């Protein structure tokens, strides 16, 4: 499909048009950028690097009801995800969209996860290409992505100065483009977009050679490397909660007075001590060493083993926000050297 143009002074109008869906866009709260549902186009903050919390929470909410119940009543009321309607995530970065297509595989593995999949099917991803890397710690090009990656996206926008180049990539994207037909113009310059994509790749400063890492990691089971890289770990959930591919969750029942309750799932982190704690008190991963080993192994060995993709898109959030500067690239370098 031909590349269209969305003039920057028509962005507000386009967002207004899109707000007939559940419209999600980056917004500011103090100095933090977060993706959230917006009703007013003015809330959208498009001059952003990347959000602190990845937009995965829009298809995989941090807390999600699975079903409701009344204690003692046999009837269980399943949550109807479809009620939420169509969602448009406007301005998602290519790495975060790619993360979704990676996590899709897990949620469709043998058992369909109805909550995730229904919501995913109802979601259209309008990506914003990274003409400049959002952070110095971006390394998407090392793990199979790129600042202009189209994987997982339905539409890709590229900031061309006074307009956005609009490329529809899927049927969903084309449909959305039709919705915006009165805001879009013809004449986007595809060649220029490609040129910018190449230039953007060159601006990614950090990198790691991932060849051989998935095979190497299992051989390092007893290696000192894990103790070394986890010594300063605090065991908090920052790296996992802010990771666009981390998908582990806990399931808890919550009951209100009068017996009304719900079973809900919520994000969990493999870095928490209680994550693997048995009811007997035994913990197969008793210290931060084992937990760090599992986190890195899961991303760079177990996941690619099962689903072919490394479960890391190189967004750099865990590096930027780790309280003690544990740096996944630093760990991987030590893995390679070990």
């Amino acid at each position, binding site marked *: 499909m031909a590349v269209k143009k969305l003039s920057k002074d028509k962005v507000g109008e386009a967002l207004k048009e899109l707000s007939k869906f559940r419209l999600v866009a980056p917004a500011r*709260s*103090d*100095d*933090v950028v*977060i993706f959230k549902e917006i009703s007013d186009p003015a809330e959208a903050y498009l001059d952003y690097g990347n959000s*602190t*919390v990845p937009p995965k929470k829009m298809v995989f909410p*941090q*807390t999600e009801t699975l079903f409701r119940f009344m204690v003692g009543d046999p009837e269980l009321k399943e949550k109807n995800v479809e009620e939420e309607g169509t969602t448009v995530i406007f301005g998602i970065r290519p790495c975060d969209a790619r993360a979704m297509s990676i996590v899709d595989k897990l949620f469709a593995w043998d058992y369909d996860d109805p909550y995730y999949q229904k919501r995913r099917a109802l979601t259209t991803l309008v990506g914003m290409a990274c003409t400049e890397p959002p952070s*110095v*710690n971006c390394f998407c090009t090392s793990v199979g992505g790129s600042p202009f990656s189209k994987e997982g996206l339905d539409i890709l926008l590229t900031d061309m100065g006074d307009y956005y180049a609009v490329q529809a990539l899927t049927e969903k994207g084309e449909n959305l483009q039709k919705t915006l037909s009165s805001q879009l113009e013809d004449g986007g310059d595809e060649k220029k977009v490609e040129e910018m994509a190449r230039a953007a790749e060159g601006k990614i*400063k*950090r990198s790691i050679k991932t060849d051989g890492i998935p095979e190497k990691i299992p051989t390092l089971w007893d290696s000192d490397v894990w103790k070394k890289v986890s*010594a*300063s770990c*605090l*065991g*908090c*959930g*920052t790296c*996992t*909660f*802010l990771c666009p591919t981390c998908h582990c969750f*806990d399931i*808890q029942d*919550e009951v209100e007075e009068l017996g009304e309750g719900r079973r*809900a799932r*919520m*994000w969990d*982190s493999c870095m*928490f*001590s*209680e994550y693997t704690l048995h009811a007997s008190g035994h913990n197969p991963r*008793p*210290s*931060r060493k084992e937990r760090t080993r599992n986190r890195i192994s899961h991303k760079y060995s177990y996941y690619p083993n099962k689903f072919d993709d490394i479960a890391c898109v190189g967004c750099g959030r865990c*590096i930027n*926000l780790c*309280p*003690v*500067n*544990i*740096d996944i*690239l*630093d760990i991987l370098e030590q893995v390679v050297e070990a």
Partner: protein
Amino acid sequence: MVDINKLREIAKEVISRDDVRQVIGYRPGTYGFRARPAFVLEPDDVDELIFTPACVNNLATYITLEEKLPVPRGQEPDSRKVAVMVKGCDSRALVQQMEEKAYDREHLLILGIPCRGVVDMDKVNARFPDVLEKGEIALEGDKFVISFNGTKEEVAKDELLADKCKRCRYPTPLVSDQLLDDEVERFAEDDYSDIETLEKRSQDEKWAYWEEKLSRCTRCYACRNVCPMCYCEDCVLNRIEPMWMRRSVDVSENTAYHIARAYHLAGRCIQCGECQRVCPMDIPIMELNRKFYKDVADLYDYEPGTDAEASPLLSTFSVDDREDFIL
């Protein structure tokens, strides 16, 4: 300024002792201006140690963080000392831990670093964005000297100084076995103006203020885990029976979490500011802790982390405690 060679020399001496297991200090980070904790196990490792205004972490956390794993049959537990480098503020965490009898003083070898202030890394990154190459920060007089990529820039101290340092009343460690530098005179006072401003707002304004901040919380528990005073082996947050704190994330649960966290630090928080520093969502957590800190000082004339011989505030009382709020 701490002489880096002297620091390494002392660290080398310490780690070479038979009764010392490790030295916890600082080393350069992996990118930009960051520094990170260093765990020195061998004399040769001391060469990576540094101390600069980028060394923001409170290393006292690691004293209580280490898991107490079962000792394999036939082996003796490692009872050697842990040596730890602490700034003035960090040292108060050790004092408070000792006041609470978290461990034996004998367990520690404290290397005190008199400190003239550390930077707020967010302010540094805002001022010098996109620096990947390893840069250095030094404090010279009332200026920070920032060098990276062959350039050198001076910035007024006040511009990059961490907020907690602007209120620091204990720049020299309150407890140490050895000071790595000359004592630093107190250079700041705390007037609690930030807390008072907030106190004066209406109830609705206060709730709205906190609702906006706390609704951002992702409950990653970085603030809990980084806190040197949060060292309960069985945290109330991990309890499922009874479940005091739910894991689900919404304004009510998040507020409950932050109230509980702050309350559990009442009379214990030593103002190192780590919780607020590590918060990825920029929640002003210290404004919660400081409210308790201020009230504890006003009502009970108590300052946590200043006297290892004192009794913890809430496990003691005075018959004359104020009770004008009681019906």
